[in-house]
């Protein structure tokens, strides 16, 4: 792998950039691999990377029906945080956060992970109770998290309306300084390049059309480019997980919903941190290019259309202008939708399945992007050892039968 550095870049510049290598190969599928990862998004590529790097399993194929990183990695609002309420979820996201913190260097690819802090606002007394409950839990779990007063909030975000005149005045917030945003596409590319360098075959434009299953065990996949064999198959296909599960003959407790987001035109820097409000329902940050990235809610119906309902956009911008009245004259450039696979308890599934050798990593809902490295890391461990990683164990499919849900719905602050 060509090492990237400022010095190297300058050298390339003198050669008119004619000597850059491909960031990943475009290989022909082999007949057989040790492990097949279905889904070439951030999570799938991370899984492949950590399989190769941490477990020495390099004979791995990542099978992607479109272009790598083209799913939710390509269309999210890039927020990374780990201030989750429940121990199980907090462990998972904090594991991920620690990997984020060294990720650019580990991958030799600057994913522009910017720890500019995430603020979750509270507008009602119950919001405040939830914030305090979550922050206290975070602190005892070793996650940086504090409660802010309205005055402290105003100091960090001077342009926000923190007055009592607001319809739902801001009463406080939780604040995670280590949280932030990252350059979403670069995460997929960085993992792809690093995994490829370790020998992983990334097979783009390769669509899984079925599983080879005999006697309750998986032996590989059928694809539009022929059959590929492996005795371990990990599906990391987000919104398409339900479709894959159906091919394998079982159902999942998942529904795929449109999640919308939008960006403004690029503006000179005006907002330095991530602000989220579950109560008035909108969240916002500003990219290094100057766009305000704004998250809208999930639409209530199932949808694979990568678009959602217009009223959701209206409500989101109403919330944003309520919090930031000065943005009324700023203009919205683009909106789009992702497809999020949501579980009833707003927590993911990292689990073995009724089919031996077949594992699923899905159900991340709106929390997928921030989990990318952690999800890949524990899922690789699970695939390599054929046994759930301790952090992954609470997220098995069984919980929907025993009732042991990890109910992040319970504690607000869950979304996104």
């Amino acid at each position: 792998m060509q090492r990237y550095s400022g010095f190297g870049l300058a050298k390339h510049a003198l050669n008119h950039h004619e000597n850059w290598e491909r960031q990943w190969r475009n290989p022909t599928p082999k007949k057989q691999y040790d492990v097949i990862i279905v889904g070439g998004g951030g999570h799938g590529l991370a899984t492949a990377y950590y399989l190769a790097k941490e477990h020495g399993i390099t004979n791995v194929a990542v099978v992607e029906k479109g272009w790598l990183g083209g799913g939710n990695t390509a269309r999210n609002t890039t927020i990374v945080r780990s201030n989750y309420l429940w121990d199980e979820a907090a462990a998972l996201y904090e594991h991920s956060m620690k990997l984020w913190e060294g990720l650019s260097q580990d991958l030799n690819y600057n994913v522009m992970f910017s720890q500019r802090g995430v603020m979750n606002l509270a507008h009602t007394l119950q919001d405040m109770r939830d914030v305090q409950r979550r922050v206290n839990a975070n602190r005892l779990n070793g996650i940086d998290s504090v409660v802010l007063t309205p005055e402290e909030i105003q100091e960090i975000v001077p342009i926000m309306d923190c007055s009592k005149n607001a319809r739902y005045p801001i009463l406080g917030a939780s604040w995670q300084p280590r949280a932030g945003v990252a350059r979403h596409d670069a995460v997929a590319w960085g993992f792809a390049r690093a995994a490829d360098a370790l020998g992983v075959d990334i097979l783009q434009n390769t669509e899984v059309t079925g599983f080879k299953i005999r006697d309750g065990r998986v032996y590989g996949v059928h694809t539009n480019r022929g059959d590929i064999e492996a005795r371990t198959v990990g599906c990391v296909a987000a919104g398409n997980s339900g479709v894959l599960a159906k091919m394998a003959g079982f159902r999942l407790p998942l529904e795929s919903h449109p999640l919308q987001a939008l960006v403004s035109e690029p503006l000179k820097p005006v907002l330095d941190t991530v602000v989220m409000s579950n109560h008035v329902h909108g969240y916002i940050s500003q990219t290094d290019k100057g766009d305000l990235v704004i998250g809208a809610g999930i639409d209530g119906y199932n949808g694979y259309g990568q678009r959602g309902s217009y009223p959701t956009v209206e409500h989101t911008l109403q919330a944003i202008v309520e919090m930031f009245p000065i943005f009324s004259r700023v203009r919205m450039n683009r909106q789009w939708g992702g497809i999020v696979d949501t579980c009833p308890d707003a927590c993911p599934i990292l689990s073995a399945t009724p089919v031996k050798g077949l594992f699923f990593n899905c159900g991340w809902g709106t929390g997928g992007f921030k989990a990318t490295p952690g999800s890949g890391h524990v899922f690789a461990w699970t695939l390599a050892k054929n046994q759930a990683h301790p952090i992954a164990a609470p997220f098995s499919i069984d919980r929907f039968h025993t009732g042991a849900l990890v109910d992040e719905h319970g504690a607000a602050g869950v979304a996104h």
Partner: protein
Amino acid sequence: MSQSLKQPNRLREGGRIDRARTLSFTFNGKRYQGHAGDTLASALLANGVDIVNRSFKYSRPRGIVAAGAEEPNALVQLGSTEAAQVPNVRATQQALFDGLTAQSTNGWPNVQRDVMSLVGKLGGRFMPPGFYYKTFMAPASMWMTYEKYIRKGAGLGRSPMERDPDSYDHLNQHCDLLVVGAGPAGLAAALTAARGGGRVILCDEQEEMGGSLLDSRELLDHQPAARWAEQVVTELAGLDNVTLLPRTTANGYHDHHFVTLHERCTEHLGETAPTVDGYRPTRSRMHRVRAGQVLLATGAHERPLVYAGNDVPGNLVAGAVSTYIRRYGVVPGEKLVLSVSNDHAYRAALDWDEAGREVVAIVDARRHPDGELVEQARARGIRIIEGSAVIEAKGDKRVSAARVATIDAEAFTVTGQAETLACDTIASSGGYSPVIHLASHTGARPTWNDEILGFVPSLVKGVHAAGSARGLHDLAEGLADGSAAAARALAALGLSAEAITLPQVDARREGTACALYQVPHEKPTLRAPKQFVDLQNDVTAAAIELATREGFESIEHVKRYTAMGFGTDQGKLGNINGMAIAARCLGKSIPEVGTTVFRPNYTPVTFGAIVGRHCRELFDPERYTALHQWHVEHGAEFEDVGQWKRPWYFPRTIDGKKESMDEAVARECLAVREKVGILDASTLGKIDIQGPDAREFLGRIYTNKWAKLAPGRARYGLMCKDDGMLMDDGTTSCLAENHFLMTTTTGGAAGVMEWLELWHQTEWPELDVTFTSVTDHWATMTVTGPEARKLLAEITDIDLDRDSFKFMDWREGRVADVPARVFRISFTGELAYEINVQANYAMHVWKTLFAHGEKYGLTPYGTETMHVLRAEKGFIIAGQDTDGSVTPEDLGMQWAVGYDKPNSWVGKRALSRSDTRRADRKQLVGLRPKDPKVVLEEGAQIVFDPDHAIPMPMVGHVTSSYYSPTLGSGFALAVVKGGQSRMGETVYLPMADGKTHAAEIVGTIFVDPKGERQNV
């Protein structure tokens, strides 16, 4: 024709501007003049302003390139005052008004001399695509510092820092046919549909309807095309069934033909809406259109050619040159070189020539151009250089020359010696891309059409495209196509439209265009001077080539790696060229590389317009009870509970000093415990339930039993979801054998109502029962405290005797002469009467209570005191003490669970799952802090071992915690793992300030454990 003195590029006559009305404006601090009918762009060109901006990445000087929505460079900051600022206004779409003040969005200290351009010049080659991904990684700790400097360069315009003085609104529109675009196809379509009698909306983004007809060289019915457009618009304006919306951009096509149209109501009049008759009209308005059918007559965007130096001011697309000359009477230069791949673009040279300025040459990539426009140019003696193209523009702040050479487009090589032609303007045309954005929003993937060298829209049911929008660029064809499409659309709705007589167009023969996107240079792309594809994001052909070399093969990858098409113009000029370049580099065809997907908005839309009237005091409804006015007048502080405003506490001012919340709440609590208090409980949800099966239904939906509740009695009930978790609680009273009144929590009211209907309608339709919300009909006043009976007795005819009107009874009678239902239900643990009266009379009853209550010390109290009092009694609040993961058993409420009921009520089965049977589930308990002065923090986490290292195993948390003036100490409710069997044990609460509180696990009832006080 010659020029006006003040505006060097303004023609003496011609165009659709009003020379009699001169408008002054300021750009970058300098004053200029233009005319009514100008856009800011045409006025700047008239004044010879070449540099309108600096580019985003390389800080290169940029000029105006186009004349419409596709303009990538001319983005300005509008506004003379802070509050009026609008960032990133496209000068080509901003009508000029008197006093307009604008500035370039980039460039420091100014666009003429920009310091950053040095960086661009020197550093440009060090900033290939993916530059950030490859650098700034070492040392890791420095990234935030690097980023701080990167961020300084971010953005185009700036946000205003003051509140918007303007207002916005929405108009919900419905029509049979929405026609987007009022060019030839759109006008013909609207006329056809309108005469057919359908409800028609016609919108167009420009200041004036007519589209390409406004600058057409062609005649319709032997008169200028613009005149025909005027006649049609006049006819349409006179029809009742037609809504004409000029200055209105269709910016988003949503599901089932829901289209958002953004009308700029006053943006052509001033930077803020000018006041008329004391009323300030809306600045812009969103039309939320639900259409039966939609006809897209959105025209086409001309593609510029990609050649070296094509970003130097003075490079324009050919059609824009015609538009500026014919529509605005502005010639944007002296000496023109035109580089084309098609006949249509020859108009630019003809118009330029007619304007009396020099056409140096037309450079045509085709070997033997032979259409009629070519002949006209030849006839005028214009030099035509065949088989060639402009390969490079020379110049720094303005084009100074064009290097022209013969090329082999197929082989992508320059085949001859370059000739240098002195000129100040280069116009180019590589063909026409149908405007497919709206069709693309519907999810339909456009398809490549080799004949027209462009993507044409794929259409979902009910969408039609006509004219240039689907590649029919010929005027006669476009008119006929628009009319036919309208007839088809109406027919699909079962309406008929007669064919209209279309104006006569003189047939004009155009030769075949050739495919040309990037023009080859003598040097390979990576070494040639920059050839720009996306001007706004500074994406070059070399960047695209590099991306493909690095393995970015899908067009989506290329776009994301280079940022092509991510600007505010969404790549209207550049995307197809970029795809063509990627295709060339990958040895594929354009459609093989991918299609191009557009998302709303077509052009950016002000947040304010999307928000509409739903802001400030109308952001969200505030729900009030019938007693709201009294609360306001008595100084209540309010708590938001759902959308309700509930009195939180009633601070008194004593000796000129207003009580704190703690003081007020302590006073209110004691008043209730010692005398009598009153609470407005009207916000509780109330559902009237009637029917022979009402009782059976209650037995299935509640966890407890309802079979024997007698008329005149009330009972507390718990409601679970089918996963066994508590959902809501409340009392339900039996009004008569088949008639019940259910109460719900304030926040849960709507949800419970829908929940009852869900079960009734989907699972148990055989039950004869109806549910009707009466939340708003009844006002509820809780009079509670030892003196409650005495007070109430003064104004009621109900027998309040403790033996005849017992706890959990309800009675009818009169209170303050008003018919009332009075319930002896207590949420405070004290003697309590909930008085329900028809809400219209509530104020009278409330005031009468106070008139009689003074001697008893009647004290109004709010939600905070209510919370303290109920917590002292261990009464839960659903949503505060529960969170969707708590069962009735976890709450210790087995007494409210009918295990032996004959039916499997909702939630029952889930209670026997392995996890819900666990002994160490979190259970509701009381906590008594070891230090009585301590009031534990709500949300504090509980541990058994305070010395455990982090991460500490947490075993529960505090759900409710208050200071109790009755107990003289703090107390709390909490959930603790296995808590119900840990009475008397000590738990710890390590807090953020470093202190660790100790507390004893106790029962949940702190005051009057035997419940005697409510039974007096």
